[in-house]
């Protein structure tokens, strides 16, 4: 056997055991009526689970919540991350220091972030509502209208640093010549940004968007720490829905079907983004 196959053998072995096999198991699971409460009475039901899930109001609601969550969080993070990266790049002093501080949130465990903000924004004991009230602003951050938005804000706090990290590296790697040429030609700030910086950053932006969006689809900790899907089901995300179906209602078959629908959705999403963002040929 060629050495190259020997080198990858341990990895192939490991991933087949812990990912491929569970994945196939999951496909099988989605076709069964598999309940944790009746583990010895498992029945093949074909695509019944998919039918149930696809028409389940709370699955569709969770999917809708997740999509609005992902879209708003990722777009806000993109704008903030890019602006901060451009500003930091212009800093003359303390650049490394500022970068180190601003990157901190992305490294800490999301459950801690969720719990910190749960208390910071709590309408009875939270500091932020307490001081906002002194200015006459009374907001119920985790009430029915604002809860999903508050969770978006928490995600923005924790993950804008990721965008910042990507864009700082992207900006650093840009060649200097086009910018010098633009300055010689007297191009203004905005023109330089929109016709040089932005197009040249495109690949980095696309990669950052995809990584961040895929990660945001997995949002679970903030919901678990703060709202548990409520009020009503206004913050129930798809991960939380699968967690509930599988481990609160013990319906493993339906949960597996939901997770497979999720993976199909994500696949379509990635293909769409890659397709839409391919460089256009200039004639």
């Amino acid at each position, binding site marked *: 056997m060629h*050495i190259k196959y020997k080198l990858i053998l*341990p990895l192939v072995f490991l991933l087949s055991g812990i990912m491929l096999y569970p994945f196939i198991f999951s496909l099988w699971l989605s076709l069964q009526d598999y309940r944790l409460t009746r583990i010895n009475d498992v029945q093949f039901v074909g695509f019944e689970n998919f039918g149930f899930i696809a028409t389940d109001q709370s699955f569709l609601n969770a999917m809708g919540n997740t999509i609005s969550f992902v879209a708003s969080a990722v777009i806000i993070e993109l704008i903030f991350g890019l602006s*901060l990266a451009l500003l930091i790049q212009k800093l003359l002093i303390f650049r490394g220091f500022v970068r180190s501080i601003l990157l901190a949130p992305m490294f800490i465990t999301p459950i801690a972030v969720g719990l910190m903000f749960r208390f910071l924004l709590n309408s009875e004991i939270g500091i932020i509502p307490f001081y906002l009230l002194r200015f006459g602003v009374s907001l119920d951050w985790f009430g029915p209208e604002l809860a999903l938005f508050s969770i978006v804000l928490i995600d923005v706090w924790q993950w804008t640093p990721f965008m910042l990290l990507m864009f700082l590296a992207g900006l650093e790697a840009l060649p200097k010549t086009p910018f010098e040429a633009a300055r010689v030609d007297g191009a203004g700030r905005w023109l330089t940004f929109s016709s040089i910086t932005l197009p040249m950053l495109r690949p*980095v932006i696309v990669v950052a968007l995809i990584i961040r969006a895929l990660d945001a689809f997995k949002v679970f900790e903030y919901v678990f720490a703060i709202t548990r899907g409520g009020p009503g089901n206004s913050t129930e995300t798809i991960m939380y829905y699968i967690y509930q179906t599988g481990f609160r209602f013990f319906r493993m078959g339906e949960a597996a079907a939901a997770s497979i629908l999720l993976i199909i959705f994500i696949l379509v999403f990635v293909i769409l983004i890659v397709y839409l963002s391919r460089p256009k040929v200039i004639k």
Partner: protein
Amino acid sequence: MIVSFENRLSRFLGTTAIFIAIILVLFPFLWIFLESIKPPSLGGRPDIWRFEPSWENWHEIVFNSNVPLNILNSFFIALITVVISLICGAPAAYAFSRFRGFQGARYSILAAEMMPPAILILPLFLLLYKLELIDSRVGVITAHLTFVVPVVAWFLIGFFDEVPKDLEDQAMIDGYTRFQAFYKVILPAVRPGLAAAGIFGFVLSWNDLFYSLLLTGAESRTLPVAIAGFWTFRGIELGKMAVAILIAVIPVLILSYSIQKHLIRGIGGSGVKY
């Protein structure tokens, strides 16, 4: 002159914006630290800023709670996960970087990295349940490997790509076999990459809640699950939760700063060429 004024104004606005961002980032950390040293009787009072610092919360957590056990569990699980990931990931990443015909394999690593945990948790839970490995460290390590291994392998491809091929060619001319060249020449050359990938994988495992929540019990509970457990208590428990959060957060921040420079290359994994 107008240009210079405009320049100065935009610089001022930019600095202000950065300053606001720094305050927004630091404020929660400052607040959680203050909560951790508030006397428990004042816990959760937003209007109190001046108080006699008390280490009662810290004392309680360190000597009278399960948190030390949770720390030990988290540390042990993360460490073993990383070691296995490096042992399996490094040779494979090297092969992906050096040999033809692995384009598809690279993408399957990426696909594995993107696999949502929701799809793996159900089968993993059932399998571990049948093996009677629920509430065991082995079970959690198995689950953590599913997201740490692909990340570590992906991370390392980028580092191997940067090692010049001459290095192992020379070693093989000197009489090393391909494997010896990899083991004795290339691996030492990417030591910083191994360290960075290992630390990144450690942090990912240390921070995980989802798998640990469903696969651990009293014996194997990890720190994030323990932190989530404080949420049912109110007011007076806030101080203890603050301590547990700080214990979870501080080591990770220190570790992460040590690998900041390598992160980009790692995440890009040679897939992104600027």
